């Protein structure tokens, strides 16, 4: 069952520059387990879109299959959504993006969806530079099929039933960096203060933005021995930086403590201010990001924050040199060469 929330406008609620309230960005009531990390990510998406003044209907949300992939029902109810098939959200989103370059694309996936069955589509989406935000809600297990290890589960971590995972994990952040993603970060569903700005910056990025968000499964993977539990992630969280997004229409205030802050100006003019916490690599340096990640990972730490960004990155449409008008709006005259041209084609085939 999907429960629709009663919808009434409360004049007391704060509204954004478009006149929308936070509630206009919400979706149906979640049917996930109480305390599931995925719900916190949905809330962070709602908050980020509200704060960015995004018209909800100009965003398309797509997902694969899993508890995580169900979440698009639970946010942005005024947006078109597409719950596709297991592990194949990237191709569906890529096609959608090709059809209309003017919408904002949000892809939501799980660790099983992206690192297990969908690893192929994941890496190819990264290397193609599809303009989108790709979020993996990473809990190290298959929630929806009741707790089997996924490909991001750490070697040696224990399942709820006591089984020990014998295989090496796939780190999607490292892979995204390696495959050419142009905005790469990691967040934690339990740290909204860091996650909301990460999502905001990623949505403003032009090109492929990837966020791996640790999102504990309270039902199947939140026990001692798990490396994806709330406690474990909190204890091992090596915060690299904390971003803060300033929309382009706001002037950057002078009190922003220069020196300490690293600022990145995105394609659309909005500015991401990064407060470094642990580590000091240049976020424009892909290799440095990969090294930092590898070093901290070797120490058993989980690096979070914005690790790499190329603000001047292009996207798939640039590579294909497609027209500025969305392809789905081209009309007969623009698409069909007509009978006179066909007569010439015929003549050349005789």
């Amino acid at each position: 069952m999907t429960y629709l929330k009663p919808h009434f406008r409360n004049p007391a609620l704060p509204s954004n520059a478009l006149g929308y309230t936070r509630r206009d960005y919400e979706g149906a009531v979640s049917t996930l387990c109480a305390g599931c990390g995925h719900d916190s990510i949905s809330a962070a998406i709602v908050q980020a879109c509200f704060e960015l003044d995004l018209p909800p209907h100009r965003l398309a949300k797509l997902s694969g299959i899993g508890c995580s992939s169900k979440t698009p029902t639970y946010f942005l109810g005024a947006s078109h959504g597409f719950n596709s098939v297991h592990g194949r959200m990237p191709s569906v989103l890529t096609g959608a993006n090709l059809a209309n370059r003017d919408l904002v694309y949000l892809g939501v996936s799980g660790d099983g969806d992206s690192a297990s069955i969908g690893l192929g589509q994941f890496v190819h989406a990264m290397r193609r530079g599809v303009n989108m935000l790709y979020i993996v809600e990473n809990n190290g297990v298959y929630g929806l099929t009741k707790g089997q290890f996924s490909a991001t589960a750490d070697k040696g971590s224990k399942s709820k039933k006591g089984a020990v995972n014998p295989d090496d994990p796939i780190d999607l952040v490292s892979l995204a960096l390696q495959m050419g993603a142009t905005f790469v970060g990691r967040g934690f569903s339990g740290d909204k203060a860091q996650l909301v700005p990460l999502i905001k910056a990623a949505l403003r990025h032009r090109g492929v933005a990837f966020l791996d968000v640790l999102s504990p499964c309270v039902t199947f993977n939140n026990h001692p021995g798990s490396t994806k539990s709330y406690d474990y992630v909190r204890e091992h969280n090596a915060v690299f930086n904390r971003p803060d997004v300033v929309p382009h229409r706001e002037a950057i205030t002078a009190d922003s403590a220069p020196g300490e802050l690293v600022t990145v100006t995105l394609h659309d003019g909005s500015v991401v201010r990064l407060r470094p916490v642990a580590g000091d690599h240049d976020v424009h340096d892909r290799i440095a990001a990969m090294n930092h990640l590898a070093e901290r990972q070797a120490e058993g730490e989980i690096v979070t924050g914005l690790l790499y960004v190329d603000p001047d990155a292009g996207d798939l449409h640039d590579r294909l040199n497609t027209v500025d008008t969305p392809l789905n709006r081209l009309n007969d005259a623009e698409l069909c060469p007509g009978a006179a041209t066909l007569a010439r084609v015929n003549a050349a085939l005789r």
Partner: protein
Amino acid sequence: MPQPLERPTMDKTNDFVVKFANVNGSGSASANQLFAKAVLRMGVPVASRNIFPSNIQGLPTWYEVRVSEAGHRGRRGGVDLMVAMNPQTWDRDVAEMEPGGYLLYDSTKPLPPSRFRDDVTVIGVPLTALCNAEYADPRQRQLFKNILYVGVLSALLDMDVAEIERLLGEQFKGKEKLIAANVHALHLGRDHALETLQCPIGLRVKRSDAVGDRIFVDGNNAAALGCVYGGATVAAWYPITPSTSVAEAFMKHCKAFRTDPDTGKARCAIVQTEDELAAIGMVIGAAWNGARAFTATSGPGISLMQEFLGLAYFAEIPAVIIDVQRGGPSTGMPTRTQQSDLLLAAYASHGDTKHVLLFPEDPRECFDFAATALDLADRLQTPVFVMTDLDIGMNDWLCEPFVWDDSRRMDRGKVMTAEELEAGADFGRYKDVDGDGIPWRTYPGTHPTKGAYFTRGTSRDPYARYTEEGSVYVDNMQRLLRKFATAAQLVPAAVPRPARQPTRVGVIHYGSTAPAMQEALGMLDGQGLHVDALRVRAFPFGDEVIDFVERHDTVFVVEQNRDAQLRTLLVNEGAVDPAKLVPVLHYDGTPITARFIAGDIAGKLSALTIVPLRKALP
């Protein structure tokens, strides 16, 4: 002193079969095509076919040209003139010849008489020796040897050499040196033949005007052009023989016809994907978002697309899939032709699914049906397959010129606009408002507060709200059946060809079988066997198909597969008496021939008249 030819026993003008036996990668393809086109330019129809291995270099390859003033486009069977350029396949090539035929070979190295046949005329030309004397560069020796034998043929068959020269001029336009070199090689061969052989032989090409305004084109090229005319803007594909050239031709046509003249930017997006799953995924995503999208593939690709095809069926998303069929199963015979994906495509995916299939008979219909498929997919909001095959797709066929009506507009189907939503139209994504089973849809981003919905493969109610309620699911599945019934009325109708006399015997065929079937009907008629024919052009079947079966006692179903797949669809979906449907099956990977069809049907008919067909028991 010209060397007299021995045993000239054939005398045929504008009606014979030439077969070229070559080694793959030797550059023979363009020379062979030059020969075929030269015959066409003399106003005489040809039917040409490549028979090639899954290999880039070294394995045998054949090119068959049927010269037919009567315009027969199917394979006839048998060879009248064999151009035997491949020692590897010599024995089987010689064995395939008709008695009284001609064998042209490279006589540089003499062969013992035991390697020839008594009942064919042998024409030896020392091609290698001639080339070695003329050219120093080994690559030139190889390439010009091919042009040389075209020159020899022009003399043997009494062809107008000026036509060949004109074709070379068109082919190498702007590269004058190449034109001169090729024309030189052509005359080297021609002059040698004129001086040393008795020309012409008993096979001749005589100028005629039987070609008319017809064009010579391959089906893949035509289908790609149909996608351009039909308004496809997104193409996602993964290379696989024999479909690859659809995507390649689409790129070529888009460059010519879809480049914005002011900006130089493309009015299309073409993506070579990582696999066929991604290809169909992109097509579905693009079509969901309001672009016309297609993919081209072959059987193995369709196999990989299964899950997505079920999603598209159930979520009701348009998709056009051009299936250039090849020999299966698995990787089967990748460079041979078959019609063996019908069941795979018709019932693709898990759960209860059925899909719309179109069966073009030739490149002209590949063009038409590609554009039609884009309209149908939008109108019906479902995947539509264009079921072509290697024979149509990769061979040049002589066919009617492409036609386009400039007043035609894309049929985008039932798409609700922002204005309609604003005016308060009730939008239920899966609601059957019009009684034809087809619901309305909206494109993402249409309206700020109205018309958004959530697309999913799981069950939902008419307003796209998730539900697992059994009765709601059943209602929806029933609506999908209504939609399929609507599809049967919208797809291209079957084309009848009645016999000269009333008859209780019928034959059903489809796709690339058409030309061989036409000819076979003529042969049967000549034997006094009257057979009504029906060319099926689509699945689901229209009433005319079922009526046809009902009006006949015996209906042969001619197919190029082992399992009688169209017959299965007729039995499954048409509720016709299976005992009436007699399969005629050809599936060795070569295109079906008129001789085979006529022979099989005549044989079966005589058996039927001796032992009358027993009615199925009640």
